């Protein structure tokens, strides 16, 4: 990382101050101290997460409107989702959030092996979530509930149920995509952790990936009751 620094390059060229090459440590030259650098990183990450709120917020708003307009059809569509698998996935994701939070803690305490283990645990939980999601998608595929040309639904509100499944696949799909990206980041972080890049002195990448991962967990915390449990509640009334 340090090779990118202008002053360092200048120092290398002129042959003066060679110690600057590595001695600045994790502190980038445009920050006064680590506290300022960490706060800037956190702020930048939160700004990114706000764009994510806008991203998911748009779909959620569209879903809210359509669910209001086609209440019964959406409840009927939701009743075809597997509440058991959704609940298991919710629990798995909370476990992964815990291991992620503990990974940040391990980095803060310079416990490298623990950090690597917890990152791997987080990825395993994330992977398990995706496998269960995949099984659910497969069931929907077999039942012809995947939106598009081959969608089949016998009932008076087939079109609106079709719309519900479009929302289901869009929302869970972009959520799953976020998880795949998160796991990708974590593979990179695990390698770097193993290399010994992180310690109490520098763990921003771990913390920032943690923020991202927790955000993805929060999205699921809302998606689970809004999609899966809507059918369960309405089932009593219909």
């Amino acid at each position, binding site marked *: 990382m340090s090779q990118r620094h202008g002053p360092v390059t200048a120092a290398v060229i002129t042959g003066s101050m060679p110690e600057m090459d590595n001695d600045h440590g994790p502190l980038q030259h445009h920050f006064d*101290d680590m506290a300022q650098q960490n706060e800037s990183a956190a702020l930048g990450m939160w700004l990114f997460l*706000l764009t994510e709120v806008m991203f998911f*917020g748009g779909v959620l708003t569209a879903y*809210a409107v359509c669910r209001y307009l086609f209440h019964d059809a959406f409840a009927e569509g939701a009743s075809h989702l597997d509440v058991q698998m959704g609940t298991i996935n919710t629990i798995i994701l909370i476990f992964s*959030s815990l291991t992620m939070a503990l990974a940040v803690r391990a980095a803060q305490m310079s416990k490298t092996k623990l950090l690597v283990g917890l990152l791997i645990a987080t990825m395993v939980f994330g992977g398990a979530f995706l496998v269960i999601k995949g099984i659910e998608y497969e069931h929907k595929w077999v039942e012809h509930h995947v939106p598009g040309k081959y969608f089949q639904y016998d009932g008076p509100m087939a079109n609106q149920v079709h719309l519900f499944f479009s929302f289901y696949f869009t929302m869970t799909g972009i959520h799953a995509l976020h998880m795949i990206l998160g796991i990708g980041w974590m593979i990179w972080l695990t390698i770097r952790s193993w290399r010994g890049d992180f310690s109490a002195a520098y763990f921003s990448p771990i913390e920032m990936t943690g923020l991202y991962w*927790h955000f993805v967990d*929060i999205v699921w*915390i809302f998606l689970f*009751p809004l999609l899966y449990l809507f059918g369960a509640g309405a089932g009593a009334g219909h």
Partner: protein
Amino acid sequence: MSHDAHAHDEPHIVPLSIYLAIFGALMIGTALTVWVAVFDLGEYSWLHTPLALLIASAKATLVVVWFMHVKYGSRLVWIFIFAGIAWFLVLIGITVGDYVGRNWEPAPNAWQAAVEAPRSSELG
């Protein structure tokens, strides 16, 4: 508050017990979410969605404040988060409010009069 000298030297390490407590609370919240969803509320069945959103918001708050360390974050982070929540509430509040309001029949008297007044004069 968050500007004490201590924060500048060492990262704030949250005790393990707090992480486990938050984890436990999230698990209880999940169980509660499922329980409320299948619970027969009778004539108050419309409460299912508000209750589900309430529990989900509580769970999200725990994650943001503790797992995401916002409790120990700068005030600027708090402002960012509230700006995000406010933005989202404006988006969904006004949009859904519009669609819900469209179906109010009959419209309040004053609105009806305002809508019909010019029309009847045109016809008359």
